[in-house]
């Protein structure tokens, strides 16, 4: 695993604009960066990332099964009781998932370690699945990188396949798509997924989360035009939905949700101590435990994370050397876990984190994000990769 400087493609910002990538720069700071790329060998990709991702994914599926069988564990993971039936029936009826991302710490030599799962509302899929691929093709064509380079990336192809599969299982091939108002990046991610759905022959109307309606006597949730929602993709977390006013209606209506309700088990950092307990010593897992007293000061070599938090918020860590780092945030209302600290590789000033994508049940690509800090935040940068 190397980081190699490279010339930027000419006029890539105009291209980005043409391709709907409007958040390549966020608040004046670069988000997409192509002045360098990461290089892996095929062996590193296949043996150290792809295979472990699928193995970890398999362990996650077993964990969902075990949690579904236990009231105590559903309770431990803060799944509200009114959701249990939906979680269980969506799992036991085999309701398919669309996608998920595992964040791995990997330096090209040792074992990739699972830092966390983003299995309910993952983003950065447009940059990983599409824009990164375009970069590779163009950079090879323009002679900026070796002509025989490859990339671990069949993400979009797999997404289209997954939508086609889901479309066949629906009564009519239509799925609504939804994100919250006033958030460009979330909206763009959803637009990309709509794009993939359409390419799979699935109609893909959009409705904002806030505009989803309910009406007495209707079996489904309704969209902004009062049309029934048969199935909907939501870039909005299950734990928030459960807390919202309409949450209690989810089990009572026939609308199918993607990700399915059972994903709430995996979008919760409480799954990490359970994975460790059930697979202790697995080379791709870090020791993790439920944090019984989050007021106690954190010991060296440990990371404290809330059950529910996004983009690095409310995470605190102390390195074995005693260096302390933390990110403030709004996720103060849930229990915490402790996870053994594992260093991320550093290239120059930047820490690199590998996001390994799972679509359907297959590992199908990676996206790399960099951050100066040890905690990857929503202000980190996306950097392309190649296989050589």
């Amino acid at each position, binding site marked *: 695993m190397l980081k190699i400087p490279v010339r930027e493609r000419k006029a890539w910002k105009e291209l980005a604009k043409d391709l709907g990538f409007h958040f390549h720069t966020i608040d004046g700071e670069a988000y997409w960066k192509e002045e360098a790329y990461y290089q892996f060998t095929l062996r590193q990709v296949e043996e150290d990332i792809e295979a472990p991702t699928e193995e970890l994914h398999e362990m996650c599926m077993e964990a969902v099964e075990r949690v579904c069988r236990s009231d105590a564990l559903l309770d431990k993971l803060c799944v509200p009781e009114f959701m249990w039936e939906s979680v269980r029936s969506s799992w036991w009826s085999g309701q398919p998932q669309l996608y998920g991302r595992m964040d791995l710490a990997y330096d090209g030599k040792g074992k990739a370690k699972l830092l966390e799962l983003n299995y309910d509302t993952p983003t950065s899929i447009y940059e990983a699945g599409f824009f990164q691929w375009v970069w590779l093709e163009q950079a090879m064509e323009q002679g900026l990188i070796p002509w025989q380079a490859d990339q671990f990336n069949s993400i979009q192809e797999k997404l289209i396949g997954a939508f086609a599969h889901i479309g066949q299982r629906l009564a009519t091939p239509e799925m609504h798509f939804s994100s919250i108002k006033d*958030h460009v990046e979330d909206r763009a991610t959803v637009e990309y997924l709509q794009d993939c759905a*359409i390419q799979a022959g699935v109609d893909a109307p959009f409705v904002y989360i806030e505009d989803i309606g309910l009406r007495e*006597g209707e079996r489904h949730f309704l969209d902004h035009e009062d049309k029934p929602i048969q199935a909907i993709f939501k870039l909005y977390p299950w734990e928030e939905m459960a807390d*919202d006013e309409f949450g209690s209606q989810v089990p009572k209506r026939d609308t199918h949700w993607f990700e399915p309700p059972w994903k709430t088990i995996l979008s919760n950092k409480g799954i990490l101590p359970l994975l460790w307990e059930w697979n202790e010593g697995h080379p791709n897992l870090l020791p993790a435990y439920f944090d019984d007293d989050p007021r106690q000061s954190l010991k060296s070599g440990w990371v404290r994370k809330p059950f529910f938090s996004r983009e690095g918020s409310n995470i605190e860590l102390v390195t074995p050397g005693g260096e302390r780092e933390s990110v403030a945030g709004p996720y103060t209302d849930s229990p915490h876990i402790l996870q053994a600290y594992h260093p991320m590789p550093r290239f120059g000033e930047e820490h690199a984190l590998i996001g390994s994508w799972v679509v359907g049940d297959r590992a199908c690509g990676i996206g790399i994000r960099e951050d100066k800090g040890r905690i990857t935040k929503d202000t980190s940068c996306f950097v392309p990769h190649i296989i050589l």
Partner: protein
Amino acid sequence: MDNANKHLPRRKRSVRLTLALMGAGAASTLAGCGDSSPETLSNVQFDDTESYRSVEDCVAGGIYTRKACEAAYDQALEDVPHYRTQSQCEEEHGEDACQTAPHTNSGSGSWFMPAMMGYMVGNMTASSSRGHMVNRVYQEPVYRTRDNQGDWSAATSSASSRMKGVESSMRTTIRTHNRAVRNSSYSTSRSGFGSRSSARGGFGS
């Protein structure tokens, strides 16, 4: 052993990708393959239709820009029935009703069409099968026929009934499509999801 595949490089990436919805134009040239499904429209509605005798008349109306007026005129011209010979055209539309068609995109050689009298321009809104709302200018040519004999109000009224025909045929398909939408004495309540979104920013992770 599968020798046939031996010399083929193993690829970890997709051979071709394209976008159907996001910035379509650039994508299809990039990836070398077009949209997989044609866009279809539903819930079509035409509003605020105005009739104009010429592009200048349209511009003077102050609703549409010159560019929009010109584009709508060119399109309207295309939509007038075209004939290979003057006699074929006159047979259909009456003696002295026809003229040589101006140079359009409809192919080489000379064409004949009933005399263009003007056009109607309106706003069209529709839901696209690609999941977004479509809002564009819609136009309908006003031209001489056997029935209207070049009378402006008769010609515009047949143009507007053609527009209604289009509108209702596109609506019918939708009505069957959305049969599940029923009139109900209950009202829809909203804002039941997303209550904390403003406090937490985005939800992607």
